[in-house]
Every structure is written in C-alpha cells, then in structure tokens.
C-alpha cells in the first residue's frame, strides 16, 4: 500500500522533469527494471532509496512520504477556480524572477489578510 503510493509519486516527479525510466535509473545506478518495480510498488523501498531518489528529482523527502494523493495530469490541468486557472496560465508565461517577485507579493497580501 505504502510502496504503491510512493511509487506513483516517483513516477509523477520523474515525468515532471521529462525523464524516462532509463534516464533516471542510470542516474541512480539502478537497472530500468528495478526502477520500474519501485514505481509499481512491487519492490520494497528503503528510506535510503527514497532519499536518493528525492535528491535526484529535486523534491523534499516529505513529498514522497506525506499522505497526499497523487492527482492525475487531467486533474492537475483543471483547477476548480477560473481566476486561479488564469493566474497560473499568466504566471507560467513570465520569467522566473518575475514569478518570484509576484510570489513574494502574494505572501505579503496574504499576511495582511490575517
């Protein structure tokens, strides 16, 4: 149960980076079959494995261990709120510095709301 959930998150994070199973497996020093078994939840994942994978995929360890359901790409593309969808669309067109500036601004606005 637990390995299947973690495996799905590994697959998702790998795909986000546009990596194939072969590419990630070779970076980790695993065989492609081993990585495939991890993603399918068939092989036991040790904490050390998860740490290594998290580093390679630039994710915090908690991303793989905390109890959050993995959403399908379709769900990801359809936020419930149209305003949020618009913000995400526009933000993604801006350069990284601009995005960070806006993030800071949103945090500041949120603090003021409290």
């Amino acid at each position: 149960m637990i390995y299947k959930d973690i495996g799905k998150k590994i697959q998702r994070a790998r795909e986000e980076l546009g990596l194939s199973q072969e590419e990630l497996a070779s970076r980790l020093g695993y065989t492609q079959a081993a990585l495939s078994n991890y993603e399918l939840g068939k092989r036991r994942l040790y904490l050390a494995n998860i740490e290594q994978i998290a580093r390679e995929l630039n994710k915090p360890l908690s991303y793989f261990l905390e109890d959050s359901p993995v959403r399908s790409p379709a769900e990801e593309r359809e936020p419930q709120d149209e305003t949020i969808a618009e913000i995400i669309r526009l933000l993604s067109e801006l350069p990284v510095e601009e995005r960070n500036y806006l993030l800071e601004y949103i945090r500041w606005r949120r603090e003021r709301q409290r």
Partner: protein
Amino acid sequence: MIGFELNEEQLRYQKWARAFAEEEMKPYAAELDRRQDTAFDWGIVRRFAKANLLGLGVPQEYGGLGVDHLTLAVVTEELGAACMGMIEPAGGTWLATCCLTLVGNEDQKRRYLPLVCGENATLAGLAVTEPEAGSDMAAIRTRATKKGDCYILNGTKAFITNAGLAGFYIVFATTDPRKRDSGLNAFIVDGDAKGLTLGKVEEMMGLRASQVGELIFDNVEIPVENLLGVENTGYLIAMQTLDMSRPCMVAGTIGAARAAFETALAYARERKQYGRPILHHQAIAFMLADMATEIEAARLLTWKACWLIDEGMDSTLASSMSKVFATEMAERVCSRAIQILGGQGYTRNSPVEKYYRDVKACQIYEGTNQIQRMIISSML
C-alpha cells in the same frame, strides 16, 4: 521459488532449533506458565543468549547469526512448538534489531546491535503502542521536542514487550501531533536513560513467561544521533519494521498449533473408546485431517511472505494474509486439540490449554487481525 524444499543451511537451523526447544525450553514451559505474578525468567534469556538466538537476525558483522527471514521463520516455528511465552523476550528483541538493521546508520548499528549478540546479550524492545494509540499509530502522543543537541521525550507507552528489562528500546514519538503520520519519529533510547521508568506490568492470560508493561518517559534526553533515519520518517520505519517482522512472529504461532496437533494426534492414537483408538473414529480423524491441512497452508503462506522479504519485494499483502490466517488457524487447531483430549484437554494435566491461551495473543499484537484485514482489503 517455485520449490518448497528448505536448503541445507535451513534444515541445519531447523534441527538445531528443534533440539534447543526440546532441551532448553520445553522442560520449563509448564512451570513458568503456572508461576504467580510475572513469570519472566532471566535464566531462559541466558540460554537464548548462549545460543546467540537473540541475535538471530542481526548481520554477522555485528555479532549475530545473520539468517534470512525464511530461516528466522523456520527457527521460530520450532521454538513456538516448545513455548510461545519464552519466545517473546527474543521476539521483542528481534523487532528492535529488525528496525535498527533496516534504517540504522553505521554508527548506530555498531553501538547497539552487538548488545543483543553473544553470551552476555541483553534484551531490546520496540515501543509503539500507547494507552490511546493502538491500531491508530497516527494518534501517538509521546512527544519529542528538539532542544539543542537533544530530543526531550515525554509520554507513556503501553503493552511493551520487555518493558523494564531491555538494554535499549526503539521508541516512536511525535514532533507534532497535528501532523499525525508525518510527525512520527523513531529514537534509540537506552534502557537506563534518566527519566525512563517502568510503569504497570500486565498480568496476562497467556504468554506468561514474558514481561509486558508500560514505559513512562519523563523528560528523557535523547542525543540527536539516536534519531533513526531522517526526522519525521517514523511512520515508514514502523510500517516496514512490522511488515518485515510479522511473518516471523506468525511462524511461532504455527509452531504452537503444530504442538497442539501433535499432542492431539498422539492422544487419539492411544485413547480407546468403543474398543478402538479414537483416531479410528471418523469424527476425530477428520478433525485431525483439518488441523494438519490448515497448519500446512499457514506455513506455506508464511514462507511465501518470508521469501518476498528476502527477495527485496513488497511483502505487505502476504505478511498480513499470513498473520490473519495463521493466528486464526492456531486458535481453531488448539480448540480442536482440547476437544479431542476431552476432559483431559481442559485441565492443566495437558499442555493444550496453555497453547490455546498463548496463541490468542497473536491475533491482537503486531497489528490486530482487523487492521490486517484493512490492509489486505485496501490492496485488493
């Protein structure tokens, strides 16, 4: 697999464990079971230590015997056939060493694993359960607060095997109860740590030769180097430890069921009614046939779980299935054994009533059978 034969080493361990159980455990089982108050006996632990049985699963480089999980199950079945209660001090130790072997860093393994190995071995224990957190591990309230180079532990653990006896415990505590699963952490705590005391010792229906009780933590200082794994990964650590140790514990139950079956079979061959041994009455013969069949089925399921563990595969489903099937099988088999022995079976003149009391515990500890069914059904 496929292949159901044990290899030479496993057969050698089986023979060795059977001899140990016959000579060092069985002669004392009835006496310890009847002792009033706590019947825990260091003399039995010393015998286990002399045979290095406490370090059975500990890798050889740290002083243990380093056997794989299938061999552990084979050995435990033999010990369980002699006395389930006497296995518990070793079983509690194996839980802790399984956890430490799984996630401990080299320094932690070097410092703690050798303590349970060899003649002068001490016991160890795994402390998860609390008065208000049994099946629901996320409800753990024992609090770990970071302060400089230490964590400060406060809280109470309940139903801990080897409480008050162990040289060290693996203790699960939360850094933030609101985070539930994601706030859990595993710590190595020395048995003589300042502020750690033994609370109530339980008076139990069976497993009388073991000590189970409360551990009370009152501002116990744990150095940060005794945190297992990474902060807030305790849930994964607990799940993996329990999944991997479950089939081995189950094997002990199969041993007790086998002992009950063998007692009933021997009795049915000797006891005559209506001019012939009761074994030749179909009513009794069929009961024995069912008992033998169910024991075999439980053993194969358990061995499969062990094989998956030894192959590095996810064993969760098979571990839970073996726990449910074998522990409920054991109660049925012991009940039938009492029935076959009739009035004799219900008295303390025969060992079967003790087997019955002992195996009942196995449906409760290490994750109740109801929790196992939740795990199984979630994976269907």
